[in-house]
């Protein structure tokens, strides 16, 4: 197939000013760590050091939680919902105003293509704040109270730990509902992607958000543990791996801390023989290669009806050869860099296991830059359900293809996983879509589409994909108390 040549179309990074080093954002200002150390954050597409950031220690976490408590018991706790909402509206507006800056910084720190950070991450983050701003003075209408009892009240200080795949977007999913409901926040961004959260701290300053309402502490797993286990934290919100989610569930057992956990997935993307195949192929590509497959709800298991399997796989491979892998700042890039050396090693390990267990591997031919962390779009066929690549979350651009004959078999295979975050259905038959949607044990079902997100749409999993929902009226529930359970 003929291939167009594209001239490089790099987005300018001049819009971003990265400081050589960052402190912690506690009590409304950047402060130096009292007991932490420092580490570097790099650009995963070039391995260039972007900045030095703080690995916050226990004392730093304690200071942040105290600042959040002080704000909760002080000005923020007394602020009427309508006024609270105005701060969120301000934040939404500032994010929109500085959207390009955030997009470029996100791409530099994360490695994702600029077209995704520009068109998905940042606009959705702003939309999340705008959506939740309007809730702040309408919570009694949200159906959160059990009914007849007391109205919804904030929980207090919320400790939030977010992953590296959608750094700013996950920040917005966490902070916007927490503030709308009147809580205060200590948030820890992921170790490899701290920069947009630190830039968000500047947004809080520009919005004149009262000191201590939002605190940003950077660090690795130990910092997150200190935060989650801190006795001054009333609620925990975590997005990340199922393994860490279980550790968190154990660590808060026997306390009165509340938790929402958005964890891993191994979603089935189910293609029936009557689906428009070219559209389905686009959906498969979007399902697993969006954001390099670093997506908890990625459609990482393709279940394709047996009689069209060869055709679908052939067209899929043809399509994958047209994807442009490379410089994330290039506006034509489809697939960017793997976020870290550690994640690249994990993807390599699992794909090697896939081959050794007998699946057939195909990778799109790609020319990679000399430096950075890269992995080609990869498809495994001849995959059986017991293969690790059909069971474990790879969190990379790797698709496992399985086949089925009947809708019942598709359901059984789709549900044959401890996870239950998302699923996809491709068919022209409406009644089959609705029947399938009923049968699939997953929190989000995309029919004839995939990987769509919206602030009004609740997101979250069944089973070991975690608990609680984020977004919509449902997402507010986890941040309020409505009195004792009877």
């Amino acid at each position: 197939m003929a291939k167009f040549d594209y001239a490089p179309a790099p987005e300018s990074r001049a819009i971003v000013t990265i400081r050589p080093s960052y402190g912690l954002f506690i009590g409304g200002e950047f402060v130096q760590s009292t007991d932490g150390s420092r580490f570097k954050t790099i650009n995963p597409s070039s391995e260039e050091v972007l900045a030095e950031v703080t690995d916050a220690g226990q004392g730093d976490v304690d200071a942040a939680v105290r600042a959040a408590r002080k704000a909760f018991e002080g000005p923020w706790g007394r602020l009427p919902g309508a006024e609270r909402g105005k701060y969120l509206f301000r934040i939404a507006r500032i994010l929109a105003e500085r959207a390009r800056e955030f997009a470029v910084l996100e791409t530099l720190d994360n490695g994702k293509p600029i077209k995704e950070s520009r068109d998905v991450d940042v606009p959705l983050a702003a939309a999340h704040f705008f959506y939740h701003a309007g809730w702040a003075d309408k919570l009694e209408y949200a159906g959160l109270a059990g009914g007849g009892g007391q109205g919804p009240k904030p929980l207090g200080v919320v400790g939030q730990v977010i992953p590296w795949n959608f750094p700013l977007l996950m920040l917005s999913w966490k902070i916007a509902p927490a503030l709308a409901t009147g809580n205060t926040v200590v948030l820890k961004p992921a170790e490899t992607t701290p920069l947009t959260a630190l830039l968000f701290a500047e947004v809080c300053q520009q919005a004149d958000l009262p000191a201590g309402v939002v605190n940003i502490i950077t660090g690795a797993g130990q910092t997150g543990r200190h935060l989650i286990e801190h006795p001054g934290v009333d609620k925990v919100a975590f997005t990340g791996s199922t393994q860490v989610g279980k550790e968190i569930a154990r660590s808060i057992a026997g306390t009165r801390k509340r938790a929402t956990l958005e964890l891993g997935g191994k979603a089935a993307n189910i293609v029936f023989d009557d689906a428009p195949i070219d559209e389905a192929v686009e959906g498969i590509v979007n399902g697993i290669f969006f954001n390099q497959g670093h997506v908890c709800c990625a459609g990482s298991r393709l279940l394709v009806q047996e009689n069209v399997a060869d055709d679908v796989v052939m067209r899929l491979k043809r399509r994958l050869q047209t994807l442009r892998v490379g410089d994330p700042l290039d506006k034509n890039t489809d697939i960017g860099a793997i976020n870290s050396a550690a994640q690249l090693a994990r993807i390599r390990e699992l794909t090697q296991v896939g081959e050794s267990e007998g699946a057939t591997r195909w990778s799109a031919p790609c020319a990679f830059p000399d430096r950075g962390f890269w992995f080609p779009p990869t498809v495994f066929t001849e995959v059986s359900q017991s293969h690790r690549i059909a069971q474990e979350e790879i969190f990379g651009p790797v698709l496992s293809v399985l086949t089925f004959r009947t809708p019942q078999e598709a359901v059984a295979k789709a549900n044959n996983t401890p996870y239950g975050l998302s699923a996809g259905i491709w068919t022209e038959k409406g009644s089959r879509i609705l029947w399938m949607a009923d049968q699939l044990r997953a929190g989000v079902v995309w029919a004839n589409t995939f990987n769509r997100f919206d602030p009004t749409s609740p997101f979250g999993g069944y089973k070991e994909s975690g608990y609680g929902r984020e977004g919509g009226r449902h997402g507010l529930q986890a941040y309020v108390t409505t009195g004792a359970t009877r």
Partner: protein
Amino acid sequence: MSPAAPRRSGSQPHGGHDQRIEVRKTYKLYIGGAFPRSESGRTYEVRAAAGSFLANAAMGSRKDARDAVVAARGAFGKWAGASAYNRGQVLYRVAELMEGRRAQFASDVATAEGLPPSRADQVVSQAIDRWVWYAGWSDKIAQILGGLNPVTGAYFNISAPEPAGVVAALAPQHSSLLGLVAVLAPIIVSGNTAVVVASQARPLPAVTLSEVLATSDVPAGVVNLITGRTAEIAPWLATHRDVNAIDLSGAADADDLSWAELERASADNLKRVLRPAGDGLDAVEPDWSAAPDLTRIKAYLETKTVWHPKGH
């Protein structure tokens, strides 16, 4: 112990040739619609609040708990798939049958909890009314808790609640009937199936309820009831990987039991945990006569959101 002590019903043998010896009941487990003895062959003495011997109840084991989970899982698909109207009628039917057995329940509760007859009768009324209250929710929660989401872009987007699956519940230790109903009804009304560990010291009202359930329209396996030592059975349910949620209400005043450990064990498959009432590590049994709300129903629901493009 005085095995020959008259039963609580007061059906004293009469003198002379009319003397009749009461036929006593064997109290068994309720699993998959059947009434087995514990596979362990064990029983334990149940005594009235006043101290007299009442019965040898089955002392459920790990194997019984696992059998109950299998039965509950087997019943889940059909019960969850039943129409909401049907589930509402089935729950309402339980209330109807309880009303017919009011005297037996009142006697059971009075004996187990040491309540005067008038108070026991009041508790039975509350328990029946609790079934009626929850029955009515079956075909309303989807509208109250779900709805259309106004997403940006040409998409139809709707969220609806679904049952979480198999729910284990430790029934309250003190409120042997009202507390049990208050815990059980919100589990099954939305389509979950239940494995309930009855009050350890006051299990007989629960066994009577299981007899009502068996003769009602509640399908076999939807409710499974185990009597025995709460602290022995609960850990097997907390660690069971095919249990989706657990209600720890009955941890309050349960002997030798730490709800914190049960919650920790529940993390292995990320069960939804409903903690017991109280502050910190304390667990207290709430006043079950207080008006209920949606909290318990919500505790065992998942929200499913479905997207579809719009086009022409």
